[in-house]
């Protein structure tokens, strides 16, 4: 859009050919300069494009900008817009928006704002800008009604996609849209509704495209068949940073439908990550089956790389060695040497946490169509910005000429924050000169992931005569999450693995937390609630051990540590403050719900844990029994405070899902490495939990809150593993200090 565009031209741009009218959400950039600085107007006015369309029949179409990976943003983000627009939610139709990178008058921008999915930030971000999108649209409609009715705008109200005349008569938004589109948006941010005026936010809303999902019509990235794309499958080098020695494709080429077979190089070791994960041999064929069949007929010799000896056992030994050093100090409060001397008693424990794969139900894939001056990507994504940059880097195309069609994604869990498969698809498409759809098998997915880091925690508690914790030391040796990633390389090694201010930091006067880097060739990345699933198992198991050793009640001990409700400093995502009272509250409610105080005499045990994740507070409690080596979970309770809830059904789904994911992972899942190769390759050796292993129900309690919403995708996972381990101890007096739980429990029983 030209900066010289006149007001009238701007308005006509907003009228679509179909006669549907787009409310003027794009700021009239050529209009008079606003009276307040642009950055005070909110994202909606300064950089967002059209989210709202009103059809002639008064149906309102709201754009969903997020990456829908199962966390419900296709429903919850449009709710924010519809609320402030006062739309009739039952008649709103939601449409997925594409990726919105463009060159605006002030340079590159995303016309839809933040579109990625990570860190449970979609709702907190949308809370800031998407409500303003709806509010501006409503402001324009009221203004149009005021003009039409010759009334001051204060006398006009709105409800369910209608403006209401003071005499009570109603006019559908659709009848005002044309006039509204001719009005210049307000120069200042529009006041938002008060919570007591909410009609949509806080009310349960079902998944907007549920009907499409249950009838098999919902389109995922893997379902795209654009432009007669050929299908590619790759055999990747199984050796960490290994390379290709030779291959024989004679049999593979005989498979009907095979178009080409060729090698692709692995990334340059140590390079910043914007390319593929491993060297490989590519088969390109007419369809998926031909590609997979031919791939199985390749004969390949690989050369092990610099990590040929890498193994989980070596890493465990390296952790022991590393922990003898000084490490990177994350936090040092009080006087540890003096505390150790003064302590009546000192407790120690070591906890081991394995590598984890994401195992999204829909494996990685990408469809790429390259043309001389433009490109199209269709794929299930979590970080379209990074996908766009990746394609631009590999092709030299300008990012504004790269179209990314966003689809529903079959899970994310952090896997799709990496775009290695997008890079592979581009490399293959460049070579083939035709559109290519790259398919990963499950085997590819488990053996070539960016795994949740491996690490060992060593904890120490110093107790005084009254068994009060006067000193606390948390040492952790782990593989950093930074792996061939330029932006992470600049950050401290503990980033996304261990948080300086996580519980009980700030609550024990003498406190020492240090991080020790383990070098490894294993690729690492973010896994749902990254540092929190990794560290809460250690801290929340250890608190339980302290309670048992000192014959204190484990809930009372935590409450004593949390102390008076107050806000303490918390550096890192979810901060800048951590509210001890909110964590105490979810813990108390969770204890009540599981009937914590009641002694179990029937062989059952109850365990509990609580943790602060990304601005949300969660506690879990389980009631379990162990029969032989079989674990049965009789009850599962999850209490959470994630601030104001936008969609109660969605938050409940995230807590149920987080709990089940937590159980499945804690009980059975680990990725191990031996001889420089990942050892797991299917759901047989990476056994995601099935219904029979799961509690019949997860009882979710959401604490009502007026605080800013925190999102909900990740808070339901971190407390599951420690609460389960604590429950197993209560039932059996066997302490599990290594994940996954079941293999360890069987060793110890």
């Amino acid at each position: 859009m030209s900066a010289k565009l006149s007001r009238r031209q701007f308005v006509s741009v907003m009228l679509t050919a179909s006669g549907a009218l787009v409310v003027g959400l794009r700021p009239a950039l050529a209009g008079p300069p606003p009276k307040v600085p642009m950055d005070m107007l909110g994202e909606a006015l300064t950089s967002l494009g059209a989210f709202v369309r009103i059809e002639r029949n008064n149906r309102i179409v709201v754009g969903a900008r997020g990456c829908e990976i199962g966390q419900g943003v296709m429903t919850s983000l449009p709710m924010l817009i519809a609320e402030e627009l006062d739309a009739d939610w039952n008649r709103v139709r939601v449409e997925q928006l594409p990726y919105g990178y463009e060159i605006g008058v002030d340079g590159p921008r995303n016309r839809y704002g933040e579109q990625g999915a990570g860190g449970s930030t979609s709702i907190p971000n949308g809370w800031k800008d998407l409500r303003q999108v709806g509010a501006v649209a409503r402001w324009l409609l009221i203004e149009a009604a005021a003009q039409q009715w010759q009334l001051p705008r204060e006398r006009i109200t709105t409800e369910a996609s209608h403006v209401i005349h003071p005499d009570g008569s109603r006019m559908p938004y659709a009848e005002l849209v044309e006039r509204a589109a001719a009005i210049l948006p307000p120069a200042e941010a529009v006041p938002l509704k008060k919570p007591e005026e909410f009609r949509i936010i806080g009310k349960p809303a079902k998944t907007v495209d549920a009907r499409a999902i249950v009838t098999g019509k919902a389109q995922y990235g893997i379902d795209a068949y654009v432009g007669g794309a050929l299908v590619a499958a790759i055999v990747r080098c199984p050796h960490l940073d290994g390379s290709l020695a030779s291959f024989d494709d004679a049999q593979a080429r005989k498979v009907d439908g095979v178009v080409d077979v060729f090698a692709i190089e692995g990334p340059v070791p140590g390079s910043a990550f914007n390319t593929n994960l491993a060297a490989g041999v590519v088969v390109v064929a007419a369809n998926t089956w031909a590609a997979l069949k031919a791939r199985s007929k390749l004969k390949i010799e690989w050369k092990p790389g610099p990590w040929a000896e890498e193994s989980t056992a070596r890493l465990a030994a390296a952790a022991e060695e590393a922990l003898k050093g000084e490490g990177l100090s994350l936090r040092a409060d009080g006087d540890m040497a003096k505390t150790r001397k003064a302590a009546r008693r000192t407790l120690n424990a070591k906890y081991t946490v394995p590598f984890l794969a994401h195992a999204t139900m829909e494996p990685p894939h990408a469809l790429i169509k390259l043309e001389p001056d433009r490109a199209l990507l269709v794929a299930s994504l979590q970080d379209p910005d990074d996908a766009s940059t990746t394609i631009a880097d590999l092709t030299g195309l300008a990012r504004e000429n790269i179209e990314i069609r966003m689809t529903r994604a079959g899970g994310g869990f952090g896997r799709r924050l990496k775009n290695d498969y997008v890079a592979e698809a581009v490399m293959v498409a460049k070579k083939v000169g035709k559109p290519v759809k790259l398919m990963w098998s499950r085997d590819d997915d488990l053996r070539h992931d960016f795994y949740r880091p491996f690490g060992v925690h060593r904890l120490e508690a110093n107790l005084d005569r009254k068994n009060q914790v006067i000193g606390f030391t948390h040492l952790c040796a782990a593989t950093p999450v930074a792996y061939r990633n330029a932006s992470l390389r600049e950050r401290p090694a503990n980033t996304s693995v261990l948080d300086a201010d996580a519980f009980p930091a700030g609550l024990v006067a003498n406190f020492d937390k240090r991080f020790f880097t383990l070098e490894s060739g294993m690729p690492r990345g973010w896994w749902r609630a990254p540092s929190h699933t990794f560290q809460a198992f250690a801290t929340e198991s250890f608190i339980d051990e302290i309670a048992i050793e000192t014959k204190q009640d484990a809930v009372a001990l935590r409450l004593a540590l949390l102390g008076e409700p107050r806000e303490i400093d918390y550096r890192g995502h979810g901060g800048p403050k951590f509210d001890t009272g909110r964590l105490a509250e979810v813990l108390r409610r969770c204890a009540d719900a599981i009937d914590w105080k009641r002694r179990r005499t029937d062989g059952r045990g109850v365990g509990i844990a609580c943790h602060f994740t990304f601005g949300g507070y969660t506690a879990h409690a389980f009631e379990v029994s162990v029969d032989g080596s079989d674990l049965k979970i009789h009850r599962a309770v999850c209490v959470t405070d994630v601030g104001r809830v936008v969609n109660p059904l969605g938050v409940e789904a995230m807590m149920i899902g987080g709990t089940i994911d937590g159980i499945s992972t804690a009980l059975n899942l680990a990725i191990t490495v031996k001889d420089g190769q990942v050892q797991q390759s299917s759901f047989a050796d990476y056994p995601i939990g099935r219904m029979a292993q799961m509690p019949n129900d997860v009882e979710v309690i959401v604490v009502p809150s007026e605080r800013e919403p925190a999102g909900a995708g990740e808070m339901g996972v971190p407390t599951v593993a420690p609460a389960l381990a604590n429950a197993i101890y209560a039932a059996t007096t066997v302490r599990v200090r290594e994940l996954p739980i079941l293999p360890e429990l069987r060793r110890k029983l």
Partner: protein
Amino acid sequence: MRDPQNKAGKEPAPAAPAAATGPIELTINGEKFRHTGDPEMPLLWYLRDVLRLTGTKYGCGVGQCGACTVHLDGKATRACLIPMAALANQSITTIEGIAGPDDLHAVQQAWIEHDVPQCGYCQAGQIMAAVDLLKRKAQPSDADIASLTNLCRCGTYPRIRKAVKRAAELIAGAKS
């Protein structure tokens, strides 16, 4: 009869090595099809790549996850494990064919009522498995429901349990 691999409508080329066993005729969602491609091709890829019936999903390709569950002569079957060669004159129903074009099966309706899907990727398979279960057990117990082995990575199992029970009610209600 449709053979999407033979777009020109000609008879399949007799020399095509993969079609050595001759065309395979089968019924999918009530419509007749003729497959002239590789007889080893699993039904899953025929449905997806050839017919573009993409409701049936790929999750593992080796029978472990159930994302590809369809009905073969009315019984839940994993489409990734059955080669087309085994399907001559058989009848298949996929998620797209479980109800009329504008209708919902009671199981689909119950799934919506209980807002089961998260990412939704496994759900077509879950629904096909649940429809089969309810045919065998009109009033399934908790243990019957737990016999469903389809994986859900998002952890929707508790809502699946409720939705299966609700579907049983809906079916019983429709019959009485």
